[in-house]
């Protein structure tokens, strides 16, 4: 299997200057992730699951350790890579899915969804076509496609967000509770899309409040609760 991510001895803490203290988030985490694999992060609240995802994405800076990402350009340590390199990888190879949409004033739902494709070089019309396909797949009403999502309900915004986050197949995908508060049909569409991306080779690492939602996708689990057994391989699941 093609190795995508090789995390070695990764630690993260937060220096809280106004309190003069340091709060440890997680320490000495090591794991690997291959193409088409789905890794579930487990652990009680505050164990550092979301923090780990954000550290891998470089929204948080690691305190120590390595995040070796096998990009299409070669191996890059995301813990130390130059900002411009991280920006480039985020545009083309590394995705991050949350449950929240960052809507922008005067940008229609379909334009927002098409944006990652356009930035990757797809012609405008083609990108919009594809965007409409995914809006439809996630169950966003046709009447809303050309409207501005700033005024949409939370549920509709979340569907637009998923369509946008998953339109461009990535090499590595981080999932931070994307199923939370999603209705059943949208959840089914999400699982279908993730399964499709997984078959095509996207490596995924995710946090889910209800892991049952993505049961069929999970290959392996890591428990971040301190003193928990570090890794568990599930042989019973095949996708």
């Amino acid at each position, binding site marked *: 299997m093609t190795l995508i991510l090789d995390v070695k001895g990764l630690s993260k803490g937060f220096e809280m200057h106004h309190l003069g203290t340091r709060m440890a988030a997680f320490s000495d985490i090591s794991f690997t992730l291959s193409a088409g694999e789905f890794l579930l992060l487990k652990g009680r609240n505050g164990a550092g699951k979301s923090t780990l995802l954000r550290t891998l994405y*470089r929204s*948080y*800076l690691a*305190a120590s350790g390595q995040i070796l990402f096998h990009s299409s350009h070669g191996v890059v340590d995301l813990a130390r890579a130059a900002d411009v390199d991280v920006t480039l990888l985020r545009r083309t190879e590394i995705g991050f899915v949350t449950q929240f949409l960052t809507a922008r004033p005067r940008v229609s739902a379909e334009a927002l969804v098409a944006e990652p494709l356009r930035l990757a070089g797809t012609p405008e019309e083609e990108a919009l076509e594809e965007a409409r396909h995914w809006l439809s797949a996630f169950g966003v009403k046709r009447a809303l496609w050309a409207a501005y999502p700033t005024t949409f309900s939370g549920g509709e915004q979340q569907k637009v967000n998923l369509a946008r986050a998953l339109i461009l197949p990535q090499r590595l995908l981080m999932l931070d509770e994307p199923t939370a508060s999603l209705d059943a049909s949208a959840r089914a569409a999400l699982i279908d899309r993730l399964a499709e991306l997984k078959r095509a080779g996207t490596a995924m690492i995710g946090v889910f409040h209800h892991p049952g939602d993505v049961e069929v996708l999970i290959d392996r689990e890591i428990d971040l609760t301190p003193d928990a057994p570090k890794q568990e391989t599930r042989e019973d699941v095949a996708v």
Partner: protein
Amino acid sequence: MSLTMEPPRLVTTRPLLTARNVSKCYGSVQALRDVSATVYPGEVLGIVGESGSGKSTFLRCLNLEEVPDEGSYTLDLPDVADNLFDLDRYARRMLCATKIGIVYQNPHLGLLMNHSSSGNVAERLLVAGERRFSVLRDKARRALDASEFPLDRMDAPPVELSGGMQQRVQLAKAIALEPALLLLDEPTTGLDVSVQALVLDTLKRLQQERRITMVIVSHDLGVIRTLSDRVMVMRRGQVVEAGLADQVFQDPQHAYTQQLVHAKL
């Protein structure tokens, strides 16, 4: 405590803008101390900091309005000097007119308030040597259109326009010659919130469509967050922290940045 970052390895283009160790004193006040910055083509660098942090002084240095006491500054363009701070006044003016666009917080600094808006934009083109009236008018019209200025008002003087419209005229003037670098000094400060959102949207659109390299200075973290790829935090004339925009706002390292982020969000 934190890790040392590596130089770029995937991005092989050279930075468009490189400023090194820029220092400037006004009498006994050190306005800038060893400020360095690099900006890659198509990138947006945001600079935040409170009043008096030196962020606007640094921007004026990049616009060659101020000459620092020390430091170097270059743009990676054909036929451009190694250190732009060494240029004489005439060369500086030409370079600014043709390669750098700027939008000020105060439209009076950037516009002739009683001349027509189209004339204000065309003035930029005149400085660059264009003399044909029809070309001037056509290019001014296109720049105003790109800035989403209502063309039926293109002959109105800025003094008769709203604050948001005045900023669009400034923006049109700044982009009329398709500059390599666009500098923005508090471009939306003082506008009311809805107008601010529209101007931000125009800037974002221009940036995406034309891949213009931008440096934007603001004390408004929301504005910086919306537009920037990378952020530099300044305090008392020095850079205290720099990084990816989401990282600086979500995981600020320096005590001052933490204060700033917690105070504003």
